[in-house]
């Protein structure tokens, strides 16, 4: 998705410079929501203000919306066919594999740090064994990040003070 956005936005229409595009991604990737939609809103806003944001968001959302609406409306009839049912019986386990592979792909850069691996495991237990709500897991993750930063901040401050003395 991102290479396509870059080709259109930077190379074809020159709405953003290379550097602006990287900045835009940094912001839109860290905010909640789908990256493609966030990027569309951000770039639309940069180019044409609020109206630009709304229009480019619609452009990013509508194709998915129409495709899925179409499938949702016809799927019930669709799944009455034996062949479709058989195909789905193969697709369902593959989806489980796909998500498991996604854990590895998303996780690999994060768990390079040992503490992150331990934390990820801890959060897994929180959510699956203790049944903690996903939102609480996310909030506690943010909180732990802040606490780690605070400890680090205090340590560097102390070290600086010790150095100056």
């Amino acid at each position, binding site marked *: 998705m991102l290479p396509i956005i870059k080709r259109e936005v930077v190379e074809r229409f020159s709405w953003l410079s290379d550097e602006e595009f990287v900045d835009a991604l940094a912001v839109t990737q860290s905010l909640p*929501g789908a990256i493609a939609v966030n990027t569309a809103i951000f770039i639309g806003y940069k180019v044409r203000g609020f109206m630009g944001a709304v229009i480019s968001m619609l452009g990013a959302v509508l194709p998915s919306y129409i495709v*899925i609406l179409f499938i949702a409306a016809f799927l019930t009839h669709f799944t009455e066919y034996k062949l479709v049912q058989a195909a789905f019986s193969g697709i369902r386990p593959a989806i489980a594999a796909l998500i498991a592979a996604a854990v590895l792909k998303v996780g690999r850069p994060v768990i390079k740090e040992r503490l992150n691996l331990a934390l*990820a495991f801890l959060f897994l237990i929180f959510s699956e064994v203790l049944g903690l709500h996903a939102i609480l897991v996310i909030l506690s*993750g*943010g909180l732990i990040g802040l606490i780690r930063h605070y400890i680090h901040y205090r340590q560097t401050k102390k070290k600086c003070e010790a150095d100056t003395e």
Partner: protein
Amino acid sequence: MILLQLYLAFAKMGFFSIGGGYVMLSLIENEIINARGWLTSAEFVDILAISEMTPGPIAINSATFIGYRVAGVMGSIIATIGVITPSILLVLLAATLFKRFYQNSWVQAAFSGLRPAVIGLIAGAAIFITRTALIDLPSIIIALGAFLLLILTRLHPIAVLAFSALAGVICQYLF
């Protein structure tokens, strides 16, 4: 009333779907399946299958699909608007505050803390889906095969899904 509920549920999920679409799975599991019973776990896996086979973000696809299931076309519109509302508000806010916001070290720290939480949640969703989707020997074999293809080869996920669909059809007619 159901429309308002749909809107609020998806706006809430949109607000917390951090770090790519897969966290959405965990949120759907909590908010839609467990808390509201709008969807069974088997339907959830089917929606996910359709999301993976079609272009577009998982968040949008699942909002459209679940919205339609719960309250027809109107439901699909409301749920989709719900899931993108937080994006609109937060991105516009960030676009105006931009660098000051993003380069703030406390904001960065909070985000870096979110990452392991996101990994934990996706792993949880993987377990949940595995429990739902792996029901007999053929499904376990297909899952293992698909997993190996995904991590060992550079095959496109859609191709892996197509192979698995074929395997499902073959199994059905063999046994």
